[in-house]
């Protein structure tokens, strides 16, 4: 309630471990195991080897000249997390956390998923290691991401639809937390973004740091200089923290996060950074979409992966300090962004990523001389259903 910086919080006034006492020892043990494992060369080598042999890293950096021309930017570069095995950045984190869970002797993995990309990545890595896997998913998301539900089941995971509340990502997290409380001795909860109690926000960022480190080196190799602006979509904030972390110490590089404005900031949206207030939710102190009475508000976004009323505490802190800024993009603008990248570069992005694509034009207009680096967090196959429902299902649109 006071704004004084609490030493137990990791990011200024944000972070912490706001969990029920039953989970506290597990969260502490996880933190200790993480802080021991991450500097350990053996652990790192195993993580890097799987990223190379199985995930297909490094992911390429693709110049996007036709997109740059279309939006009036000097240069646009695309970091291609969509080309990772399973089609998004999410798998970087899953590989690291499953390795850690094995180190802790856990024999069962649970996860939440919104778009299904984290669920698919978790189910995939569990299949790779032969671990049982349960994925909680809001019933609304089960519907709109049917393809990913089928993929998870094919990979041997049990997908549990959650009907409570808004039946989306936040409710899936609630249910995963309930499972974890009941099975904490055997089970690792593989959180899919830079959110939740410590160590998750730090751990998930570190496990995605590879995105930013690769992109920085690739950009220097390709252009001889750093990008001027790094852009990523923000749901919980993991792909954004991953790419941002490569550039946090480069003061000349602007960092821009793009969240979902849904039907518009006056209507239903998921723009936590723009409209949220300080709160305690899902194990962390961060910004939260809530009413005056502290009840969570239902988020809305066309993209299941951004449809979440909270945001990782480090993003709240980066905004607080001014190191990063955050824009928001509506459902319609995101659909436009999806079409734009598809038509100019032959890359169909995930609807989540499409939000960041849609923000590029405005950033180019601010200063056309800049190099914009976009994190393409995932590919759009999973969203074709949703996009078809919003457009002429034939796929033929007016040519532009």
């Amino acid at each position, binding site marked *: *309630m006071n704004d004084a910086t609490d030493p137990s919080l990791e990011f200024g006034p944000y972070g912490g471990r706001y969990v*029920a006492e039953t989970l506290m*020892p597990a969260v502490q043990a996880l933190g200790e195991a993480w802080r021991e494992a991450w500097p350990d060369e053996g652990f790192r080598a195993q993580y890097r080897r799987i990223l190379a042999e199985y995930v297909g890293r490094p992911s390429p950096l693709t110049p996007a000249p036709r997109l740059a021309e279309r939006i009036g930017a000097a240069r646009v570069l695309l970091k291609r997390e969509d080309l990772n095995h399973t089609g998004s950045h999410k798998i970087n984190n899953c590989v690291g956390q499953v390795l850690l869970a094995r180190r802790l002797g856990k024999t069962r993995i649970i996860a939440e998923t919104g778009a299904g990309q984290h669920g698919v990545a978790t189910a995939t890595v569990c299949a790779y290691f032969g671990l049982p896997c349960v994925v909680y998913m809001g019933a609304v998301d089960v519907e709109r991401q049917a393809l990913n539900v089928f993929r998870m089941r094919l990979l041997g995971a049990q997908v549990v639809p959650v009907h409570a509340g808004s039946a989306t990502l936040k409710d899936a997290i609630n249910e995963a937390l309930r499972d974890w409380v009941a099975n904490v001795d055997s089970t690792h909860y593989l959180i899919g973004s830079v959110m939740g109690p410590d160590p998750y926000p730090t751990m998930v960022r570190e496990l995605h740091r590879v995105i930013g480190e690769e992109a920085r080196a690739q950009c220097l190799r390709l252009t001889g200089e750093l990008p001027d602006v790094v852009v990523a979509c923000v749901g919980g904030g993991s792909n954004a923290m991953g790419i941002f972390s490569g550039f946090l110490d480069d003061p000349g590089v602007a960092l821009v996060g793009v969240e979902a404005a849904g039907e518009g900031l006056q209507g239903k949206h998921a723009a936590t950074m723009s409209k949220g207030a*300080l709160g305690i939710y899902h194990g962390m102190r961060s910004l939260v979409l809530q009413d005056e009475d502290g*009840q969570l508000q239902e988020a809305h976004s066309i993209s299941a992966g951004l449809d979440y009323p909270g945001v990782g505490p480090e993003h709240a802190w980066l905004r607080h300090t001014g190191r990063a800024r955050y824009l928001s993009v509506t459902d319609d603008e995101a659909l436009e962004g999806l079409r734009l990248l598809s038509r100019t570069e032959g890359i169909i992005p995930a609807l989540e990523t499409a939000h960041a694509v849609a923000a590029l034009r405005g950033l180019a207009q601010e200063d056309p001389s800049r190099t914009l680096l976009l994190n393409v967090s995932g590919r759009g196959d999973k969203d074709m259903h949703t996009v078809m429902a919003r457009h002429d299902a034939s796929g033929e649109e007016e040519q532009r």
Partner: protein
Amino acid sequence: MSGGDEERSRIDEVFAACRAQRRAALVGYLTALDPGREQSLARLRAAVEAGVDVLELGVPFSDPTADGPVVQGAMTRALAAGATLAGVLELAAELRAGWDGPIVLFSYANPLLRLGPAIGERLAAAGIDAVLVVDLPPEHAPELRAPVEAAGVGWVSLVAPTTPASRLPAVARSASAFVYAVALRGVTGATLEIDEELVARLDAIRAHTARPVAVGFGVREPAQAAALAPYVDGVVVGSAFIEAAEQGPAALAAKVSAIRAALTREGEAAR
């Protein structure tokens, strides 16, 4: 709250009276304003008249991650009927006007945060004796505990089955009202098996605190209450009361009486 020569709190009075009667206190949980104001008030009155010693009043929250389907359902109904924290406090004050037993407010941290620095006075004015914040472990408790205790309202700390021995003293010490021993790994509404491990755990908790110890999570039947009564100062029942209340205040009163009757420690030396 804990000062020996201060006026004894309602909570201390009740636990002492129960001890003198050689029984464990019945701590009864109901979600405030479920399913609406008038029915909730009728249920709460029925519960205290039928023998609930300490009333645990739940603040409805949109995302109750430590609760099972029964409490979650109650919270959803209350919120659908327009429940607010101000409404909960007003309900407590109205109940308080006709009942002198202790009221413990059970809440998630986020709704309480919205009260700001005035939280202590607001709770005290509503006749709240203590607060239990389920997602605020001792490490983070001070941010709410300090203003709450400054207003003379007590703090309830949770000890879990997973709490290691090394952590127990600090957790137990953070309780100024009583210690709430969570009986099982899981959410509210599960079913508890009482075994030697639980009994040993309850003894270990007692060894670390002079405050009363209540046990809850998964207690639904008189036989369970009877089995726990010898080892604790209080037994908490929640989901089973909400389920009974769904059948009306009379069914709730019958369930309360049945559990209450099971809490006597006949043949046991008072502890």
